[in-house]
């Protein structure tokens, strides 16, 4: 799965648009969208919003979290806490990228928002690097990843899982050897440090 696929999944998120055309409800397979009344808002999936915006058939209402104040608060919290905080959207990176790319005119202070999102991303990536570092040093076989978004998790692919798999392989006794007599079990598996919070 590459970043394109993650963005594709993020495009399912709903956003509000203000259309400049009229249309009755469109019955999509996944559910109805519309009705569209010029000047009125309606919820549509992001892929549709982006498409309509590119045809200049709507304006996109930025999601409620996409404003400088809320994001600044988010950033401060992320900076001050050691854990990963919950992001306002499970796809904040992709949604921000898509909206800022196609409809920055509709978003007040778009440039500032871009910068803050980038800052938040950087803070979180630094945390990920630290956690991964200790995860690998402890050769853990488990870690909690609460509040990380799909895009962030994907950024660890394939390196992190591959590293851990490799460490597991090295820890595993060679086939056909009697492990008990070859290694003291304490060296084989470090059981004290298996639980790490990422």
């Amino acid at each position: 799965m590459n970043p394109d696929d993650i963005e594709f999944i993020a495009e399912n998120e709903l956003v509000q648009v203000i259309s400049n055309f009229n249309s009755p409800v469109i019955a999509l397979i996944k559910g109805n969208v519309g009705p569209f009344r010029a000047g009125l808002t309606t919820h549509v999936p992001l892929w549709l919003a982006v498409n309509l915006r590119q045809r200049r058939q709507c304006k996109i209402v930025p999601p409620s979290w996409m404003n400088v104040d809320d994001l600044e608060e988010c950033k401060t919290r992320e900076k001050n806490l050691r854990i990963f905080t919950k992001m306002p959207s499970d796809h904040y990176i992709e949604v921000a990228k898509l909206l800022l790319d196609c409809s920055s005119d509709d978003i007040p202070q778009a440039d500032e928002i871009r910068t803050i999102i980038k800052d938040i991303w950087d803070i979180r990536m630094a945390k990920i690097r630290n956690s991964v570092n200790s995860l690998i040093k402890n050769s853990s076989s488990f870690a909690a990843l609460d509040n990380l978004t799909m895009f962030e998790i994907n950024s660890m692919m394939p390196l992190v899982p591959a590293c851990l798999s490799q460490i597991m392989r090295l820890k595993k006794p060679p086939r056909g050897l009697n492990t008990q007599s070859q290694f003291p079990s304490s060296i084989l598996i470090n059981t004290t440090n298996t639980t790490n919070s990422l």
Partner: protein
Amino acid sequence: MDDISSEDILLEEDESEMMHLTPAQLVDRMQETWINEIRAPEILPYKYEYVECLLEHINSMEENIETLQTASLVKVVHQLEIDRFRYIIASYLRTRLEKIELHVFHILKEEDTRIEKNELPYLSDGELQFAQEYKNSIEQHFQSVLSFWPGMPPDDWKNNPVVPNLDSFVFLKSKENVEGVIIDDSDENDIVDLKEGSQVILSYSKIADLLKNDKVSLL
């Protein structure tokens, strides 16, 4: 335990679940199935119902919009949605084909075992046929490569097939509360409870059954 009757119950559950799925739920299930397949190191049970059902929706939608004016907004919007679902299905099936090709000897052996034990197969009929023909084509090619061999060409290479690494690590999200997942084979007391919605990384082999029973999904 009587295998056959427990399967019948499983089948019935599957069918009744399908009847209760709204199209929106079906699409979500298909997407989850697709991501699981991409992330899992081994091939997962084929989700026949999701693929068939969604393809049916796509086909009937395509028929419905055929009469609409080409450039009409409604048609474009429907077409965009159809393209999205078609991509998920195509990518899902491609991912499975890649696994089948890579691990063909292993997968067919496992499939045989499942049939012997009267368990549900993992491959679709089409995939099974593809797998068998693909395996034959590889065997034939190798035989022709080794045809110079004095006496009987060796076939010991078949004994050492490429197998998926089930110990590889995966990211996952728990769909419900799960207690007592063993995270380290060397220590049975080294267990962890997964709360609904929690995200973790651990070795695939520890959660393969949970995944197949729809208790967790891969990320």
